[in-house]
């Protein structure tokens, strides 16, 4: 992923914007700003929780790597891809 793309996605997904999202325990996500709703999987919910707490990308990846017992590099690239997705929808 190019840095500029990621930077764009990150700016879209600022902490304030993410904190507006209502996320249920079952993975239902509601965006009150657009009225759009989503389903997020369990790992996505974990990352969303981290990002809403203002954790950075690396912290979220660390959290994901630990909880899923996967290499940090894998978690990091997955979080980046997830952020790109969020950037498209929010």
């Amino acid at each position, binding site marked *: 992923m190019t840095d500029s793309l990621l930077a764009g996605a990150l700016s879209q997904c600022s902490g304030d914007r993410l904190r507006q999202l209502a996320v249920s325990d079952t*993975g239902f*996500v509601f965006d009150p700003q657009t009225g*759009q*709703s*989503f*389903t*997020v*999987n*369990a*790992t*996505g919910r*974990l*990352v*969303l929780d981290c990002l809403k707490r203002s954790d950075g990308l690396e912290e979220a990846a660390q959290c*994901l790597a630990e*909880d*899923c*017992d*996967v290499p940090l590099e894998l978690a990091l690239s*997955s*979080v980046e*891809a*997830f952020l790109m*997705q*969020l950037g498209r*929808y929010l």
Partner: protein
Amino acid sequence: MPENSSPKRPKLAWEPPFIQPHRVGEINKFGRHRPREARVASVFGVDVELLKKNYGSPLFVTSEERLRANVRRIKKAFAVRWGNTCHGWSYKTNYISAVCNILHQEGSLAEVVSAFEYEKARALGVPGEMIIFNGPNKGRAILERAVAEGAQIHLDHLDELNLVEAVAAAQGRKARVALRLNFDTGYSEPWSRFGFNLESGQARQAAKLAAASPHLQLCGLHSHLGTFILEPRAYGEQVKIMCKFMREIESSEDVQIDVIDIGGGLPSMNALQSIYLPPEQVVPSINEYAEVICGTLIEETRYRSHTNRGLPKLVFESGRAVVDDAQVLITSVVGTKRLPDGRAAAVLDAGTNLLFTAYWYNHKVETTGEARGALADTVLFGPLCMNIDVVRQSVQLPPLRAGDSLVVSPVGAYNNSQWMQFIEYRPNVVLVHEDGDVSVIRAAEDLSVMMAQDRLPEHLATPFAPVRGAGCNRFDAEAEKQAKTLRPFRICRG
């Protein structure tokens, strides 16, 4: 952090984080329900996981009960409307011997299109006179056998007509033949490469020649419109044209047509990739076809009640409509991945090597486990090292994991005949008997099957042997010594 300060959180099953927008209220012009996960625990009454455990994965599962019910239903649809009917089982649709013999037990003729298929039917015990011998490539040797055994031979071209006549003359017999016709019904693309063209006059010429021969008995007319014909009126037009031609040649030649063979082409409840609507909405019932076909036949042969000629037998050669939904494929997820465009993907242990029809159908795919989350657009790849090995380009499935079972259906038509011996072994095919027992009807391949037809010339019997001859390969004592160590490279010195 001090020990035992807090219990470690339970670990999550790894899956890349993913978010999917809901498409609530999106216009659905096809009148379909929103996709719901299709789950099955058993196929044809037998537990999927038990089948996998006993017979492996992938696994073709065939239902004897469904197969018999299908052919009875189709035959009944025609028989109640036209008393004198007969079904010809199209061997090429599914070669499995048990499948063929179930249909023969139901009274179906064998419709074969090659020497191999003819020999297979005979090996299964089908008498020659119960074989319809079709196809554009019938060699002299197999024709000699077919003529001697009284098979009905459907002529494809003039050279074949001459050959059959010569074979019959040499045997001092009269071969029973039918003319395969091609013509334009206005409904589907004419398959003009098969048989004699009607509009150009070829068919009339062939009929004249056959009628004049002392060694040919022209007893039938045959045509095949195409495949997956979704318009019953196409068959009505076909019957009308064939009956008109029958009347013409019966009045001009000394022939009596006893058989009108309308070929196959009836669709199954499968989803063609080129058609948006689901099969339940586009595939007419078999009764609709039978109504049009038999109705037209009654109308077009009414004149025969004023003559001494009897009514012809109606032969139909449905393959797909008989067998497609009588078989499913159980396959397992080997691994999962997330594609760069965000779509979920899974690699399966069965691909287009087993599911040749995946090239033109969107097969139904059902999961077998517990519900596991929201459906997402998923790509299903097969096991081949080829980019085109895709079982489904897009199907709504829950998150998959390695080891999950999927049931793909319907797969009974053209997969057990067009599957490829390529990269992977072909798996077991089992039959669920009418009493619920399960037995293997085609054993899985192994290395001995794959190598059975190979022949190694003596000088190629050993790999890594020294190579004599020209070019860069110079044989000498040292090279021979090296070769004996079986080192994995070709000896090339000097």
